[in-house]
């Protein structure tokens, strides 16, 4: 069972958090300008990487959303950072195709 460190409440079992999926998927500024393909991509397409994954969780204690960098193979959590912050230097967003 994951031990996740809420930036405010500290470490807790994963059952005290809710998962929010892949992080840094910005909602398009002007959705109406997007093609169906682009919009479908935003809605559904995910990198789902085997390895480093940047993801969102919300703490069921303080109810704050934040970002987690976790290895999806080892479940090791290498970083936790707040909404709006950039992932810590070394970490690249995995799986992204341009």
């Amino acid at each position, binding site marked *: 069972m994951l031990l996740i460190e809420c930036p405010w409440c500290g470490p807790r079992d994963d059952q005290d958090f809710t998962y929010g999926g892949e992080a840094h998927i910005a909602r398009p500024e002007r959705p109406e300008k997007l093609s169906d393909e682009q919009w479908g991509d935003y809605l559904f397409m995910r990198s789902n990487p085997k390895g480093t994954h940047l993801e969102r969780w919300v703490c*069921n204690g303080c109810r704050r959303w934040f970002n987690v960098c976790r290895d999806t193979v080892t479940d090791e959590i290498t970083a936790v950072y707040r909404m709006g912050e950039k992932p810590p230097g070394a970490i690249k967003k995995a799986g992204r195709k341009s």
Partner: protein
Amino acid sequence: MPEKYQWQSALATLGLEARALAPVAEPGVTLSERRVGTQLVIRGDAAEAEFAAGVSSVLGLDLPTEPKTAHRKGDRTLLWLGPDEWLAVVAGEGEDRLAVSLAEALVDLHHAIADVSHSRAVIGLEGPRAREVLMKGTNVDLHPRVFAEGSCVQAHLGRCHMLLHQLDAAPRYDIYVHRSFAVYAWSWLSDASREYGLSIASSGAVR
């Protein structure tokens, strides 16, 4: 209509006053229904000096900015709920005017005040085995080295959500649960306590 209906707490249905009459020898745990008074959720930016000052001017308590801590003076408590969220609990003097005074103090600051006095029921839990009982239902570390007098935390208790506040080293705890879950929380706590000997204390006069 029977008088008991005129004002009815979430736990009234359990008839706790009657149960409190039966004393238990050397209880490991004592449970009680607590009447804490007015509860307000206060939202705002702790970094704004005026905000912190405004709140403490009304409550006479410093704004706890350290996560999972509470400040308490007499029957006034200010608990940290989140980086921009607090719960003010005030009984007695000034209780009814609290929301208004706060709104005045914080006017033209980005803030929010919500009256949640009826949102949560409060269960008092104390006794030498009180910590053992809680550790059956929550995975938060309550060891005195990390959770002591003045600590508070929001976590799950069994299958419901609680706001836990440690009042002293006895240890004595206040457990805030959402009103509609109060009966569940109470029976969960009393079941979990039987192993250690449970006594039920009177909640004192109905307010």
